[in-house]
């Protein structure tokens, strides 16, 4: 089973929830798909046993063969090729690796080369469970290839927890590939409600069953509960706001490490999520 943990925006507690669960469930593999700003390794402190460079392709023009017809530049929807009478110049940072320019070139002047866009680190977390995370290089266009590879590398595992990118971007869509179930982490403020609506819409469109976890419960008001009731969304659990947890978090410690109450809170949360997930796949 693969369970994705998401949120409408950063800072609602997506990493908190996924990491506390991963620390608790030793058989679960945690993958951090928030490759633009991975944070889970701060809490998991993994012993890295493997690294894999992820690459993308980009075109190279053979100036001897180029006939300066400009067809490649006209075709490219990403403005990644500039063409003039004197030269044809691909800009590899803009390229999406679609292969179109090579296809349209009548002179066979375009070939593709590879460059690294990021790295996947594999290892064991300080809790003894398997943990993988990806990191996109600063300034790179898209982490989708890294996320796809993270999913591929864990496809045969029995239980995978996915720390997804925030929001509803293509990266989030990629992270949700093959997820059996999703958990939206939100907070009981007007911002939390507003931001989760887009995620709800996206999950419905993708037909992935999900439930909601209300983080920082007790801080805000009832609007998020009213919204969930109105939309018929089930709430798998609530994590009350606790100042000591927030303080521990600031220095890289997880809630389940600081007290038994927190351990049993996350245990119950996990049982609920699992129950909901199994139920959703019975019908």
């Amino acid at each position: 089973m693969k369970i994705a943990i998401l949120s409408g925006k950063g800072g609602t507690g997506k990493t908190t929830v996924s990491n506390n669960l991963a620390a608790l469930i030793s058989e679960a593999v945690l993958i951090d798909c928030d490759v633009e700003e991975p944070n889970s390794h701060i809490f998991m402190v993994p012993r890295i046993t493997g690294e894999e460079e992820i690459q993308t392709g980009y075109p190279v023009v053979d100036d001897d063969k180029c006939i300066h017809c400009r067809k490649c530049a006209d075709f490219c929807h990403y403005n990644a090729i500039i063409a003039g009478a004197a030269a044809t110049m691909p800009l590899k940072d803009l390229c999406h690796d679609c292969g179109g320019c090579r296809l349209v070139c009548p002179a066979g002047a375009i070939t593709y080369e590879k460059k690294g866009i990021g790295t996947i680190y594999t290892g064991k977390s300080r809790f003894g469970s398997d943990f993988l995370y990806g990191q996109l290089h600063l300034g790179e266009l898209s982490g989708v290839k890294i996320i796809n590879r993270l999913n591929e590398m864990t496809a045969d595992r029995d239980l995978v927890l996915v720390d997804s990118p925030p929001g509803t971007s293509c990266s989030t869509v990629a992270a949700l590939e093959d997820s059996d179930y999703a958990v939206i982490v939100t907070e009981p403020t007007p911002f939390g409600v507003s931001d989760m609506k887009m995620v709800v819409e996206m999950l419905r469109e993708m037909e992935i069953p999900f439930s909601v976890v209300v983080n920082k419960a007790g801080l805000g008001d009832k609007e998020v509960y009213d919204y969930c009731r109105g939309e018929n969304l089930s709430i798998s659990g609530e994590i009350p706001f606790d100042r000591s947890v927030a303080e521990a978090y600031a220095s890289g410690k997880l809630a389940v490490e600081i007290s038994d109450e927190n351990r049993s809170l996350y245990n119950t949360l996990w049982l609920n999520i699992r129950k909901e997930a199994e139920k959703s796949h019975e019908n």
Partner: protein
Amino acid sequence: MNIAFCSTGCELKSELDDRFGRTTYFLIYKTETSEIICIENEARMAKGGAGSQAVQQLIDHNVSVVIAPEVGPQAMDALKRFNITPYNQKGAKTVEEALALWKDEKLPLIEEPGAKGLHKA
């Protein structure tokens, strides 16, 4: 020779635009005839790669000098490759002022690219 300015309008009195790739207009001044041509910058509404599309337009209009604010690294490489020399518009408010400063050789060359452009598609 054709000189391009990043401009907010189509006249010599127009204020300079503070963006290169997404400038509103390119005002092109022909030194031989003092004629000006105003082109609406198509790259302004580009989904991504505005800087490179802007360079493409400069190439298409035979521009050899561009007076700009910052230029991103990719556009910078492209300008070099196509022999377009970028000068910094610093100190000028309008196209007219920038042109006068350029004629007096008082505009500095842009040698280093500024921050990376807005190249997300």
